């Protein structure tokens, strides 16, 4: 099959160019993130809502509470290792002067957001032209980074309260409990509203799993990235 020439002229066959969007390592990171967060959420909710009858139905024996906490801790360690890898890579890339920087917040994001708001309010007909990561995607990334920082720190305090209060004031323990419990819900709600809308409803974007994004979506949603990759000047981003 592979040595047959591509039948570019046939009307029965549509050929499509795709662009690599995520490297295998990044796709693995996302998969680990989804899995560990899901396990953490599912084992965390019954602990947060222990006073309710549905939680007590799940945690039906004292041993089950221990079990679910152990699972929660294991998932937390997996996620922590992933975070260490991610930060390690960040530092490595900076040290090698190779950090792409496309995910870093920039003034352009504020301008894009403003233009987007104008577009959404029918004050402008032009959508902002995005690069590889638009401000929505950057916001998701940094929201999660911020949330994981809080969850990790407060989670460690709850796991080792005596150790932490050897150095830090005792008041951080109830504060950590409140933060851990609130941030978890906030992050879950955010991911469902914001991230799920953008990757499932607005358009089905599976590039984080496949690694590839097709030409049409790249040109429409990331016109500046499309230009950078192809060298074509006239993007058809908004015109359709």
């Amino acid at each position, binding site marked *: 099959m592979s040595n047959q020439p591509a039948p570019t002229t046939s009307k029965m066959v549509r050929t499509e160019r795709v662009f690599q969007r995520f490297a295998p390592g990044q796709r693995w990171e996302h998969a680990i993130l989804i899995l560990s967060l899901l396990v953490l959420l599912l084992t965390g909710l019954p602990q947060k809502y*222990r*006073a309710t009858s549905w939680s*007590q139905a799940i*945690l*039906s*024996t*004292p041993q089950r509470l221990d079990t679910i906490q152990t699972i929660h801790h294991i998932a937390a360690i997996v996620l922590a290792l992933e975070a260490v890898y991610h930060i390690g890579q960040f530092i490595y890339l900076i040290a090698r002067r190779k950090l792409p920087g496309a995910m870093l917040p920039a003034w352009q994001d504020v301008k894009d957001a403003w233009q987007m*708001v104008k*577009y*959404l*309010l*029918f004050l402008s007909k032009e959508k902002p032209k995005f690069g590889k990561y638009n401000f929505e995607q950057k916001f998701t990334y940094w*929201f999660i980074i911020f949330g994981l920082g809080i969850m990790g720190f407060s989670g460690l305090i709850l796991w080792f*309260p*005596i150790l932490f*209060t*050897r*150095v*830090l*004031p*005792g*008041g*951080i*323990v*109830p*504060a950590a*409990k*409140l*933060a851990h419990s*609130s*941030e978890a819900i*906030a992050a879950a*709600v*955010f991911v469902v*509203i*914001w991230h799920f*809308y953008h990757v499932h*409803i*607005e358009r089905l974007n599976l590039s984080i799993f496949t690694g590839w994004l097709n030409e049409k979506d790249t040109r429409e949603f990331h016109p500046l990235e499309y230009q950078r990759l192809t060298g074509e000047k006239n993007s058809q981003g908004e015109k*359709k």
Partner: protein
Amino acid sequence: VFTSLGIYLFVAQPVQAAPAAQETEKYCLNCHNNPELKMTLPSGETLSLYVSPETLSQSVHSPLGIECEACHTNITIYPHPANTYQTSREFSRAYYQACQKCHPTNYEKTQDSMHAQVAADGNLNAPVCTDCHGAHDVHAPDQPRAHISETCGKCHTEILATYTGSVHGAALLQENNPDVPVCTDCHGVHNIQDPRTANFRVQTPEMCANCHANQELMAKYGLPANVYDIYKLSWHGVDVSVYKARWPTIWHDSAICTDCHGIHDILKTTDAASKVNPSNLLKTCQKCHPEAGPNWTGAWTGHNEISLERTPFVFYTQAFYTSFTPFVLWLSVIYVALQILRATAARIKRSLQR
């Protein structure tokens, strides 16, 4: 006389007063009013057979016409049937059973009590009705109220001594305070249970809350009435409520009121000797958290609502999660809603152009 009799009939509900027809008292007292009257039991004990007519006339029963034969059912005439009891204790344990004729409910309750259980295991010193209420000198047990605790203290001497020094005991015994708990308020009256069980433990916070969640009562003493509600939200409290709901018979170590405040030795938190006084709090925490360092007590919010002065870390955390986080989430919701609207509008426009 009739009024007080009426009140008594009303107050002592289970009493089914027998018709005042037994004229046995006068008859019996002919002999038993002699202070010298006694007999020697087979055990060698000397049993006084003297009954003070004065004591009898002041008891609750005699004025109601409930006389000797009502309880001493086997002795109706002189000469009496031969004595079959070996010891005076055997005597008491046999005669108290007459109480159930008129007081069946309370009698039944005592049969389920810790005391009955101990007696069944062979300790005949376990109290029967007459040990607490008296025999020929039965009075209302709570006149004055302190009398209840003093009665229990006849056997439980050490606990009474401890209780006497507590905030509850001192108020009861020194001021005859009508609100503080006497023994029976926490332990029950006739069906007193073993307080060392998991079941008793898990119900303790609610028991304390009977008074300490009572707004009116607590206001009288300048105490907050929300301590139980806040405790229930705490780490310990949630744990305890789950055990109470699901596993009341499984022992658990999450702290209940008495673990920190003490049991019979509860003091005001401002008292320097109180286990929860700031100067002793760390030691109290260390009973369960032996590794805890001096900062640890700061983790305890002390049944207080979140406030900037007392719990600044929690206060700022709460402020963050009740203002900034909802703000960001609402912004996200609005943004996504606008996107849906705009995309729908664009789609309609496209279909119209077609």
